[in-house]
C-alpha cells in the first residue's frame, strides 16, 4: 500500500523510517553467539543488511572473540576510550575500540590480548567495539585459541553444507537432488512415486524442499511427471 493511501484519505500519515513502524525491521533475529575467529576472517567479511550480520564464506557473525598482538595504542585524553590496532598474524590489522573505566594499567604494544566484541563497519572498514579486553595470562591460551579457530571453521563449514543440502556431489547434483533421484530410480512401476511417498522416504528434508527439488529436476529433464503432477519417475536408464 502506498504511503498516501494510508490514513483513510486525509492526507498521508508519517511513516517512521524503519524502527517501530516497520513490521519487518528489528524482527529479523541478529545472529547470536560468539565466533572464535581470526582477524582476517573479519576483514574479509561483508555486512549483510538482509541478515543483519557479517558474512564471510560459511561464517555469519556479529560478535567475535579474537586474540592478537597490540601494535599501536591510542588513548583518548579523558582516558575512557582506548583504541588498539590488533594483529594476529592472519594477514591484516583491525582496530579495537574499548570504552573502559580507568582501572588497570594501560596495555602496551607487543602485548597479546584477548578481545571479545561486536564487529561494526564504518566508512567501509570493519572494526571491533570491545566489551572485554584482557591480557593473556598464559601463552597456552594463544595456542588454544588458534586451535579453536580451526575447529570453529571446520564445525561451521560442515554444518553449513549438510543442513542446507547445498553440498555438491561429484555429478553436479546437490545432496537433496541426489537423494530424490536415487530414490526415484528404485521405482518399479511406470507411475513412479508420489510427492508424499518421496517426502516420507527422505526424512531429512521437508516436503517443501522435496517439491522444489522435483520442480527443478523435472524442469531440467532429469525426471518427469507420470499419472499427475504429483507423481514422478526417472528415465529408463541411469
Amino acid at each position, binding site marked *: 500500500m502506498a504511503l498516501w493511501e494510508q490514513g483513510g484519505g486525509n492526507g498521508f500519515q508519517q511513516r517512521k523510517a524503519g524502527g517501530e513502524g516497520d513490521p519487518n525491521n528489528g524482527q529479523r533475529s541478529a545472529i547470536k553467539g560468539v565466533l572464535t*575467529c*581470526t582477524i*582476517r*576472517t573479519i576483514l*574479509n567479511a561483508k555486512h549483510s543488511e538482509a541478515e543483519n550480520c557479517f558474512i*564471510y*564464506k560459511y*561464517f555469519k557473525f556479529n560478535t567475535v572473540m579474537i586474540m592478537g*598482538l597490540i601494535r599501536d595504542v591510542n588513548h583518548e585524553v579523558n582516558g575512557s576510550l582506548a583504541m588498539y590496532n590488533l*594483529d594476529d*598474524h*592472519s*594477514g*591484516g*590489522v583491525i582496530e579495537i575500540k574499548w570504552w573502559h573505566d580507568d582501572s588497570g594499567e594501560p596495555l602496551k604494544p*607487543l602485548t*597479546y590480548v584477548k578481545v571479545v566484541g561486536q564487529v561494526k563497519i564504518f566508512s567501509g572498514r570493519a572494526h571491533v567495539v570491545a566489551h572485554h579486553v584482557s591480557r*593473556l*595470562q*598464559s*601463552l*597456552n591460551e594463544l*595456542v588454544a585459541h*588458534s*586451535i579453536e*579457530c*580451526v*575447529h570453529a*571453521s*571446520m564445525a561451521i*563449514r560442515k554444518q553449513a553444507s549438510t543442513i542446507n543440502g547445498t553440498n555438491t556431489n561429484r555429478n553436479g547434483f546437490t545432496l537433496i537432488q541426489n537423494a530424490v533421484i536415487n530414490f526415484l530410480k528404485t521405482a518399479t512401476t511406470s507411475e513412479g512415486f508420489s510427492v508424499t511417498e518421496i517426502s516420507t522416504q527422505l526424512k531429512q528434508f521437508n516436503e517443501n524442499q522435496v517439491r522444489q527439488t522435483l520442480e527443478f529436476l523435472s524442469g531440467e529433464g532429469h525426471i518427469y511427471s507420470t499419472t499427475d503432477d504429483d507423481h514422478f519417475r526417472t528415465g529408463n536408464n541411469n
Partner: protein
Amino acid sequence: MTHHYRINGSMIQQFSGKPVSIIGTVSKIHPSGNVLDLETSDQQHIVVRSSDHIVDVNPGNIIEVLGEVDNRNQIACDTIVTFEPEQTANFDMDMYNQAVMLFQHYPQDYLVNL
C-alpha cells in the same frame, strides 16, 4: 600485512621465503646482539637475525619470532615478542608443536581465506 604461518624447526625449509611465526626457547644470544639461537618446539635449532638490537631477551626465555625464512634457512626477523615469566611458566611446548603440525593438515580451516 600478510599471513604468518606458524611453523616448527622441521618446516623451515618448506617455508623458505615465506612469512612465519615461531615460538621457541632462546638458547643463546650472539655477542653481536642482533642474532640469537632459538630452540624450536621440535627440538631443532634455528638462527634468528633481528633488524634491531635484541633487548629484554635472555637465554631460557620463551619468545615468539615473526619474520621471513631466508635462503639460508634462518629467520630474518622484524618482531620479537617477549612474555612475562607467569605467562610462559606452564607453557606446553609439546602441545604447541602438535598444533603447528595439525594446522598443516587442515589448510582450508587454518587459512580460511584460501
